[in-house]
């Protein structure tokens, strides 16, 4: 799951997965356009939907991973 998310972020942000792994907790490595693409792709891939509150809390790759994990487990 983590690898899938990293691949999605990588294709939306245009940064390699290896590079992203060094920046898991860096805030907002994406712009608003990239964030929209990333969110839509992740929601489709995992068949989930983020609430506006969750979207507000997604600022790093680690945060995406933990939110997806939580949603999948529910």
């Amino acid at each position, binding site marked *: 799951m983590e690898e899938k998310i990293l691949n999605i972020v990588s294709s939306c942000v245009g940064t390699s997965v290896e590079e992203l792994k060094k920046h898991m907790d860096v*805030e*907002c490595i*994406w*712009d*608003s*356009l*990239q*964030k*929209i*693409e990333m*969110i*839509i792709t992740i*929601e489709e891939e995992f*068949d989930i*939907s983020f*609430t*506006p*509150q*969750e*979207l*507000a*809390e997604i600022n790093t790759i680690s945060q995406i991973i933990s939110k997806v994990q939580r949603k999948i487990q529910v």
Partner: protein
Amino acid sequence: MKHNIRINGYSYRLRPIELEDAQFIVDTRLEDEKKSQYIHKISPDLDLQINWLNSYFERDGDYYFVAENLFTNEREGLISIYNTNGDIAEWGRFVFRRGSLGALESVNLVYKIAFKKLGLKELYTRTVEDNTAVVNFHKSINAKFRTIIKDEFELDGKKYNSIEQYVDKDYYFSTLEEKLDTKCQKLFERNMKNAIGNFRFHHYGIACKNIDIECNEYKKSDYFEDEFLGGGKRFVYGF
């Protein structure tokens, strides 16, 4: 200035700002300290904001909009066209509530207003050089770089260079509009799915009396007259 420009997109609309939006402006601009660090600070004092809006209403060439979510009717952000000089203007005062996905469509709608309704030929932005997320956003839509203006902004006593980037009418209509429309449509599908449930779309429809007048913002792939709607109403599909 007082204007009456409204535009609907797929998931968001832009409408003129009103005095009643003063508290929303204050709340939105002060909501996220990190995101707000590169915009001019405003006072939490509501009366000062009302005074500012009253002076804005008197200023020509300044168009301030509220972005509202068409699914929820909630206000989610702010965006403006100002410093109009002939057929060129700046856009900015661009702030959205945390968690909103309305920024992209609002930018697209501002370009539509500028080039289709106001007859402008160019819209430019000046962004604090250190505000890489916004500078990169403009880069990602292929806004052209014009110049760096030294020490243009002073925020909290510190001076910052600004980066001027611009989009002209020709580029918007030849390339950018379709690119942004496609992304907005994708976001609309996501929002629609969240609003009414999980199914795949193959077309969308609108019932209307006059397609050219009522649906001129939409791309129509085809339409048919629906006998059940009566009165010559037509059903448009395939945006």
